[in-house]
């Protein structure tokens, strides 16, 4: 976990995205679930609150985990929905380790499918945008080659005809090509981020589905194959 985030002093920032995990065990201290991370990061002095722990990803987004004082409830909250997935995943794994798999984990709210669908739409739109951009780039490069060919023909000609602004068209086409290529590069960066977000949401949904519907390990493997979190944005 030290690779992915750091532990910070409990944060009270506005958290609009929340997920509550319910267990059948009594309340426990949060440090017990993240002992190895506290040791690896050397942050024992800031982990003094027994029921709250805040994590900050390297991109600056904070996720806070709160443990209910009366029951074994864990609330994971953050300003970004995409930030929840990783901590939910880690927390569920660690709850199972701490209680040696002898724990019932449930989800208080419904499975956040709406957020998943939004992420799928965003990812799809970006893929479509890149596809259209590539088509546009192909058109412009074709135009560039045609104009270039005509110019070369005139250059070779002993009695050349006037250029008729062909040189201007060549320059303009070249500029267009460069602009479109830069746009595609930007979109590809955005697509990478969208893929990461989608992957994170799918992973979280997989884990929540497993806990909520008590899916066996074997069925969970099947679910992971059907609802895959491995997003590959290669050209088909």
């Amino acid at each position, binding site marked *: *976990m*030290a*690779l*992915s*985030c*750091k532990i910070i002093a409990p944060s009270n920032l506005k958290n609009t995205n929340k997920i509550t995990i319910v267990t059948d065990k009594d309340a426990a201290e949060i440090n017990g679930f993240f002992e190895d991370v506290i040791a*690896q*990061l*050397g942050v024992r002095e800031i982990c003094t609150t027994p029921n709250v722990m805040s994590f900050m*990803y*390297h*991109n*600056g*987004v904070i996720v806070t985990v709160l443990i209910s004082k009366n029951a074994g409830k864990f609330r994971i909250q953050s300003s*970004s929905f*995409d*930030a929840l*997935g*990783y901590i939910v*995943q*880690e927390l569920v794994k660690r709850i199972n380790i701490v209680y040696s798999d002898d724990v019932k984990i449930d989800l208080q709210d419904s499975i956040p499918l709406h957020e998943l669908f939004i992420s799928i739409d965003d990812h799809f739109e970006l893929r479509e945008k890149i596809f259209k951009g590539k088509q546009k780039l192909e058109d412009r490069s074709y135009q560039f080659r045609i104009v270039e060919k005509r110019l070369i023909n005139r250059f070779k000609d002993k009695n050349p005809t006037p250029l008729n602004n062909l040189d201007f068209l060549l320059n303009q086409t070249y500029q267009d090509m460069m602009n479109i290529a830069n746009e595609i590069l930007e979109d590809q960066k955005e697509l*990478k*981020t969208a893929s*990461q*977000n989608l*992957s*994170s949401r799918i*992973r979280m949904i997989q884990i929540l589905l497993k806990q909520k519907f008590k899916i066996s390990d074997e069925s969970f*493997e099947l679910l992971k*194959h*059907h609802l*895959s*979190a491995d997003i590959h944005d290669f050209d088909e």
Partner: protein
Amino acid sequence: MHFADNGWLQVSYLGTEPPKLNYILPESKDMKYEEMEAEHQRLLSRILANEQDEKTEPDFTLSISTEMDTVEEADEYIDDPENIYAKREGATNPIRIKCKFILNYNGEEVKNLMVNIIIPDHCEVDKKVFSYKILNFGGQSDYSEIFYIYPRNDYFPVSNEVVISASYMSTRSAGGVDLRTA
């Protein structure tokens, strides 16, 4: 179409259009059962021979173990023009985790050894592939290499998994070589 990492290939068809397959009946001809049986036996013996060959345990085996240090600040200049590496507040050098893989081999040498390091998307590694034409263990059973993992600051983490795998040619005592993985 879905190809899972454990080798399952699944082809799904979503749609309402009925399949439009044209069935072509083969021309009827006399079957030569004796020839078919002979061919079947020949192939079966080859399959069995191959299976037996695969079951042979290698004389020498290679195993990989790993060690991971605590998070530290890089003590050397790391080129980061796009500012993608995670840094501590006010620091100029990125943070990193020092990792080590240790190869343990009970033979003398391995040939064409290639160690691959696969890291999650929110991290970078200073070296992804370590390759050795011949790695001589020279009486020592361990060989180690150090690599550094640098977390990025532009993606949300999805997983923590770092996979280290190796492929190599191992000599057999009876002669010949095996392509092995660890």
